[in-house]
């Protein structure tokens, strides 16, 4: 247990060095951490999908973006639970305090799905 803590601590120090240091970030990096709020938000989205709950799923989109997806979601609500499985394997590839992008692979193609912290303080799906 102690060994594990030491390893975690070591990794965190390395992370601190690369993310907060005054030196130039010379290497583009995709190793970023998923915040608790983001994880929670994605869990809620996946929960709605698993229940084929179209209304709840649509409510996670921003108003501006929901209009592009609502019709297809409502017409295909029985497919939502299976769609949830695709989202289980996602990789966070960009994140700041207001915006996050995950990469998802489906049928050999890679897709970006993005979300943002809306002005009401809630995370919303933007592009999926």
């Amino acid at each position, binding site marked *: 247990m102690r060994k594990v803590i030491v390893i975690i601590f070591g990794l965190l120090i390395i992370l*601190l060095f690369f*993310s907060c240091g005054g030196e*130039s970030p010379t290497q583009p990096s995709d190793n*970023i951490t998923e915040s608790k709020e983001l994880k929670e938000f994605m869990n809620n989205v996946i929960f709605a999908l698993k229940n084929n709950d179209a209304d709840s799923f649509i409510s996670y989109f921003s108003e501006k973006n929901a209009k592009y997806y609502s019709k297809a979601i409502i017409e295909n609500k029985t497919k939502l639970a299976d769609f949830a499985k695709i989202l289980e394997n996602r990789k966070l590839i*960009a994140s700041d305090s207001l915006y996050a992008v995950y990469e998802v692979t489906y049928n050999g193609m890679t897709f970006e799905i993005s979300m943002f*912290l809306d002005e009401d303080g809630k995370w919303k799906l933007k592009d999926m």
Partner: protein
Amino acid sequence: MNKLLAIIVFSVFCASLLYSYDNKTAHREFNKFILSKFKEDYKKWPEFKDYTFLMNFTTLKGSAITKSGWWSPTTTEENFTADKWITEGGYSADEPEVPAAYRHFYDPLANDGKTYLTDLNKALALFNPQIDAINWHFIGNDPTNANDWTWVLGKEYMVKALTTINEAERNAYLAKAFRCLGEVLHNTADMGCPPHVRNDAHGGMGLGGPDPYESTFNPALISTNYKNEIGQPYKTIFEDAKTAMDLNIELAKFTNKFFFSDETISGQGVETYTSRNGKKDYPNPKLEKLIYEEENFNYYSTMPSGRKIEMCNDQSLLLGYLTQNFRSYPRVTKKNTSSQATELIPMIVEAGKQIVRRFFPLFNIEISINSKDKKLIGSVKHIPTSEYAGSISYNGKIGFKIDGQISNFTANCSKGNFEITEIDTKIPTNKKVQAFINFADITIVSNEITNEIIAPPVLTGVKNISDKWQRYNQGFAGDTILLTGTFAGCT
């Protein structure tokens, strides 16, 4: 355990800063690499043939923002080198953060009738300064709060620094001048960021949601792309720009013309799209004029540099899964951002480099020797430019190099003129001499001349060697005298 938890929380916070066009990393990086490019290139410009820019040793005391704040950031007195002041100006320009979020927009086309930000949710907006980013950073006359770190003030501080004789005062002015330059370069980086030049607000507090270009921009791309070639027409435009303000305006025009921001994409794609922020569509770019590649769902454009850049993408996982039609509305993805950055970063750095070039007043130092009076006479003549049209009378210390080595004697320059008397005792005969001025580790040297004045001999002994009786203090015509001592030009 609590300590470990604190470290984890702090790490997550820091990791969240790894991406984005923020002032803590990205803007500092931009300023750092703009300065780096300036230092790499200045010797190519004839006006700087006598200049050397180091800017990394002497510390200059001044006020710096050392802790961010929405409304009240922390300011402390710091001793930074010139290059550090410039880098930190990239950071402090975004402080305090809230008003900066409203002031840093400039629409070169005034597509909504104004050059400042109009894409505001008036119900949520905390204030509306109605000033565009160019005006704010160069002139700064916002009636709600004047900008203390403008281009105009920066130049004033530079002139004051070069006309005061007091060393401490000079360094204080230089600290302010370089912070101003750093804050203007922040504006340069913003003018190469699509949402900042297309009236596309972002960031909350009445500014709508975040912008994907800003949020997914990877600051590490600056160091790897800052030397990329830019289009020849823009090289010429930047080279020929009369003023620094023209440079940032030209950069803004380029970014506005060649790039979409996420909410200002318009044209014919799967259907006809208009700007999602509800504002009038921009004339360029247009989806129907771009190249669409079905295999990756990207719209492409060939830039003035010749690079093929991803403009936006309309791929949708959800719609594809549900309807088998993977095409949706176009938006800017993270991959698109990285592609666009390869074109925008070098444009920012090239424009920024030219801004640094225009920040320094030009001087010509000339020296000559007056043999009759045994004087070295010199002048520090200001050469007027578009940025420094008035006359600058340099006051301050003048240093000298003898055969390339810094000498320990100095002169004081007053109103652009200086002199050294009794040079036969200070500069050895036939040695090469140069005068120089130095401020913030920037050195300007004079022409090089050779001292041809023969120094008077220093006698240490006299002996009448033709008088065999060696009568003291007496001699006759025709006697041979032996003089011993130091004689210029003899060994």
